[in-house]
């Protein structure tokens, strides 16, 4: 049995963990800074559309960037942690 993950799996895994946290950060920034919200509306016509496009674009760019580096991490743990933190922060921010 092999336990070694391919370099793109590692690179895009790190990227996914970062983008999940960035997604929450962008939500907070656009809610708190009206200029950012206005710019995101101007980008695609709706802040939500821009939000998704920024997230996916960043996921692809960071994925290729991290794939070219030799990084060893436990991807499953990293993604579980970032998902829990990201989602709880979204819920917390909206509830406040």
């Amino acid at each position, binding site marked *: *049995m*092999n*336990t*070694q*993950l*391919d370099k*793109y*799996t590692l690179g*895009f*895994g790190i990227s*996914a963990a970062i*983008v*999940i946290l960035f*997604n*929450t950060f962008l*939500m907070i920034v656009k809610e708190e800074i009206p200029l950012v919200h206005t710019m995101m509306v101007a980008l695609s*016509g*709706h802040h*939500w*559309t821009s*939000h*998704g496009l920024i*997230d*996916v674009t960043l*996921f692809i760019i960071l994925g290729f960037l991290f794939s070219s580096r030799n990084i060893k991490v436990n*991807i*499953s743990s990293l*993604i*579980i942690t970032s*998902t829990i933190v*990201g*989602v709880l922060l*979204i*819920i917390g921010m*909206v*509830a406040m």
Partner: protein
Amino acid sequence: MFESILLLLHPAIAVVTMLLVVWLIVSLKCVNINERRVRMLSLSIALMMVSIWIIAGYWYVVFYGVDKAVIVKSSWSFSHSFFMETKEHIFFVVLILSLYLPLVAFRNSIANNTSAQKLLITLGVLILALMLYIDGAGAIISHGAEIAYMHKDGLQ
């Protein structure tokens, strides 16, 4: 009519996607893992999630504004202010995890790699849990709109 089709289509696709995620998790728990099936399921989940993004996104951007204006003035305003606000941002977490699925499935030899199997199961469980929340939130928003329109308390 077109608006209603879009509104009903996106949770329907979401339910089918959730079933595919369950199938993926079960497939990875089999003694003899069918690598081709795992790859096809992973790809299908990613494609269906992109279709939900487009269909639900179009409905949300084009049509939801009218309902939102009524819901936020009603006694069920929390169905927008809490559930829609969390749902629309948690969806992007699910989208990123779903886009990552086929990459893991196609770039690794799944049948012989325990780390890749564990990672795919982790992604599947996270996607499933968040989709269940999103689905529940959608039901609450729908009920919020129903109450707002039926009781007319959002139209005053």
